[in-house]
């Protein structure tokens, strides 16, 4: 177990390093001159030269890459060109929106998916099952940003239950803040829930056909008890994989949804930074988001070890 843990930890670190390399390559080498990216094509030559010096662009690429990594290890991601404050500070303040949003969306998605998936599996090949499958098929096809717009149209503009966007900040209190996150989280969650519900259903049906579920029934457990106590935990293994993969989509989805609802999160930050050509922010936020995705998948790996004793004892 220790060995496999070490192995996974190592591959996590290597992947993370590869992410920084790719981001550096795409954002600093590919465009040719980052200073030109920052200032735009109309920049004056002397401003460009000054900026190059300020950014250390006269140094060779590998030294700049090394300096970036070293800074990262010290928690120093540089200073935003447009905001003039440290990028870490910027990310930190934006995370207060994005992380709660992503977690809320993920919980909504998991909750919805479990309810729909378990219901469909228990009604296998009956109208209830077909109904759920049809709903999920449509759920997958709905663009999250469009769903967000529909939610605004219905709940904000027509019913006036929620504001059409914006974020009051956590200073305004927990519930007002959550209220502002609910519609965006729902818009993000529906497509993920649809995918996940299908996975839950398929995994449950796989497991429900297994002998040990029949054993459980022969012990006198009802169908529902057998499903809850024996099938569900075994079915969680494939479900967890998909949840891990979905988290990546969800995080990427926040970039879109935060723009629909004008939420001051990481997604909106990265989007604004593109318009403002704030390379320093972009490269660090991209690495940060990718790092979260990789870390979540790493945690899912650990989760396997916890849930499946067979993996724990495998040498």
């Amino acid at each position, binding site marked *: 177990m220790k060995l496999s843990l070490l192995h996974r930890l190592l591959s996590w670190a290597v992947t993370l390093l590869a992410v920084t390399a790719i981001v550096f390559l795409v954002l600093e080498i590919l465009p040719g001159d980052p200073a030109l990216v920052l200032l735009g094509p109309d920049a004056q030559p002397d401003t460009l030269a000054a900026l190059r010096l300020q950014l250390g662009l006269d140094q060779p690429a590998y030294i700049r890459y090394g300096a970036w990594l070293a800074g990262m290890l010290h928690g120093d991601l540089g200073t935003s060109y447009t905001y003039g404050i440290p990028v870490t500070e910027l990310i930190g303040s934006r995370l207060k929106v994005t992380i709660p949003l992503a977690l809320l969306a993920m919980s909504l998605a998991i909750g919805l998916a479990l309810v729909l998936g378990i219901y469909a599996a228990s009604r296998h090949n009956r109208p209830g099952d077909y109904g759920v499958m049809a709903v999920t098929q449509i759920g997958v096809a709905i663009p999250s940003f469009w769903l967000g717009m529909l939610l605004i149209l219905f709940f904000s503009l027509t019913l006036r239950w929620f504001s059409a966007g914006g974020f009051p900040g956590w200073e305004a209190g927990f519930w007002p803040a959550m209220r502002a996150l609910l519609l965006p989280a729902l818009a993000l969650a529906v497509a993920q829930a649809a995918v996940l519900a299908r996975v839950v259903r398929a995994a449950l049906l796989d497991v429900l056909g*297994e002998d*040990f579920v*029949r*054993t459980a029934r022969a*012990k006198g*457990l009802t169908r529902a008890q057998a499903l809850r106590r024996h099938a569900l935990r*075994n079915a969680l293994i494939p479900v967890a994989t998909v949840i891990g993969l979905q988290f990546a989509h969800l995080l990427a989805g926040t970039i879109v949804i935060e723009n629909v609802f004008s939420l001051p999160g990481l997604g909106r930050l990265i989007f604004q930074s593109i318009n403002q050509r704030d390379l320093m922010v972009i490269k660090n936020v991209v690495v940060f988001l990718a790092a979260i995705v990789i870390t979540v998948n790493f945690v899912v790996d650990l989760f396997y070890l916890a849930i499946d004793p*067979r993996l724990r004892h495998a040498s």
Partner: protein
Amino acid sequence: MPLLDVQNLFIRIGRGESAIDVVRDISFSVGSGEIVGILGESGCGKSLTAFSVLGLLPQGLSAAGQIKFDGRDLLSLGEQDLCALRGNRIGMIFQEPATALNPVQTVGDQIAEPLRLHTGMGKREARAETLHLLERIHLPNPRAALDVYPHQMSGGQRQRVVIAMALACRPSLLIADEPTTALDTTVQRQILDLLLDLVDETKSGLLLITHDIGVMAEMTERVLVMYGGVIVESGPTEKIITDPAHPYTRALLRAVPQRALGYDTWLESIPGTVPAPSERLRGCLFRSRCSLAGPECEVQPDLIPRGPDRVAACWRLPQVDGSVPA
């Protein structure tokens, strides 16, 4: 009154006109302390018969007729009443111990589950009883086994666990579906001995499903031979082994020595295969593989008495002394 009394049991796939009977009109009984065997090739309906007693037929299959257990008709019981009987009054032992156990739950928890479900025992009490059960089935180091996962055990040990699970609530009827098929020969021996001891000790009835004539001969007192969903012969095991009546039983017995020569199964040694349920027409199902078949076999034979306690379904047998001609 026998413990288990099955009368005119039909098991069918599907509904309405397209329904097909996979088990047709079988009747048998099992008394307390008695071991009754059902012998047949795979696909003959013997396992389905066992599952119908528990009310656990796969989806799409339904049973009709009468299955009386302790005087109650199981086929007319609701799901709740059936759940109260399963694992409590009727224990089931499965063929494949590798898959019959939940891979993510400890052995101890799995055995304790029926105890907690049916006897209202608390966690600690159930654990103590589980330990006791593990001792009874002669598992080496029973205390450690409580917290072990199935994949950490050998096949024979797992099957002992499955047996302990079936025994947990001291059922009056045990159903064992090919309990030794998945095991090595030496382990088979031990498991069979264990089952014999347990039946002797608990006086529960045992319905033993097997395709193995050796197992049947050793374990059972009475046997039903099934072919293509019907009983072709039944009677005391000893009589059937020494003097089989039905051509199918005879063919089975003739095929036994060939196993010793290294054939995996004796199936190949009888020419032909069991007709699939959808291909079953009228008449004796065995006639296409039978050396005695004649024109009268186009009509399905009834079970005709063949001496005390014995019946066989064949038109072509010579009359036997003491039997009443049909």
